[in-house]
C-alpha cells in the first residue's frame, strides 16, 4: 500500500473564454510495477495508480488508464478548453482503493 501520496497540479488561475490551457500534474507514488522481484526472488506485488481523470465544470477533459510501465511519481500533461469560469477536478485511483483528488479554480474573463 502506497503511503505519503501527494498530488500536485500546475494550472492557470485565469483564462480567456474558450482558451486552451496547458495542465501539468504530478503525484508522488512508487508505482510498483508488479514486474520486479525482491531479494528472495519473490514478485513484489503490483501497487500503482491505475486510473486518472480530469473534469472541468463536471465535463470530462481526459481520462487515462495507467499500467505498471508508468514511472514512479506519475507525470501527466495535457490541454483543456476553458469555456467559462469553473473548477478542474483531478482524480487519481490507486490499486489499494484509495482515491486522491486535487482541484484548481479558473476565472475566465
Amino acid at each position, binding site marked *: 500500500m502506497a503511503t505519503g501520496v501527494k498530488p500536485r497540479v500546475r494550472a492557470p488561475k485565469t483564462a480567456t473564454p474558450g482558451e486552451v490551457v496547458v495542465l501539468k500534474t504530478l503525484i508522488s507514488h512508487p508505482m510498483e*510495477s508488479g514486474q520486479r522481484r525482491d531479494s528472495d526472488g519473490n514478485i513484489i*506485488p503490483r501497487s500503482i495508480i491505475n486510473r486518472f481523470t480530469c473534469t472541468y465544470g463536471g*465535463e*470530462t477533459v*481526459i481520462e487515462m488508464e495507467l*499500467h505498471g*510501465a508508468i514511472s514512479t511519481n506519475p507525470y501527466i500533461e495535457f490541454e*483543456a478548453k476553458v469555456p467559462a469560469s469553473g473548477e478542474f477536478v483531478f482524480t487519481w485511483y490507486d490499486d489499494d482503493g484509495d482515491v486522491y483528488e486535487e482541484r484548481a479554480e479558473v476565472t475566465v474573463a
Partner: protein
Amino acid sequence: AVAAGLTPFMASAKKYDDALAEFTGGAEVIDGEIELTTPEIAENGNTVPVSVAAPGAAMIAIFADGNPEAEVAVFTFGPLAGSQAASTRIRLAQTQNVIAVAQMGDGSFRRVAREVKVTIGGCGG
C-alpha cells in the same frame, strides 16, 4: 485494498501483439499521421518522457514492445480536451519501440513507432 500476493495483474501482462489486438479489436491499423515524441536515447530508462498527439482521435494507447507488459497507458479525450495530445513518463526495460496507436473519431486506427535506445553510456567526450 487488493491483497498482496494475488496474481491477477501478472496474468493480465500482455505482449504487444495481444495488447494491440485487444485495443483495436483486430481492426486494420494504418501507419502514420499521428505524432509521437520520444528521446532518441533514454537519459534514464526508469523515466522516459513520451508525448503523443493525434488531432481528431478519441483515444490513444501507448505500448512498449520490449517490456514484460507491453501496455503502458490509454488516454481517452473528453469534450473539454484542448487537444488530442498528452505527455507522460514511462519505464523501458531495454532498447525497444514505443508505439502509439490512436482510435480516430471515425473508428479507424493509426499507429506510429519510435525506437528508444536504453544505453549503459558513460564514455562521452
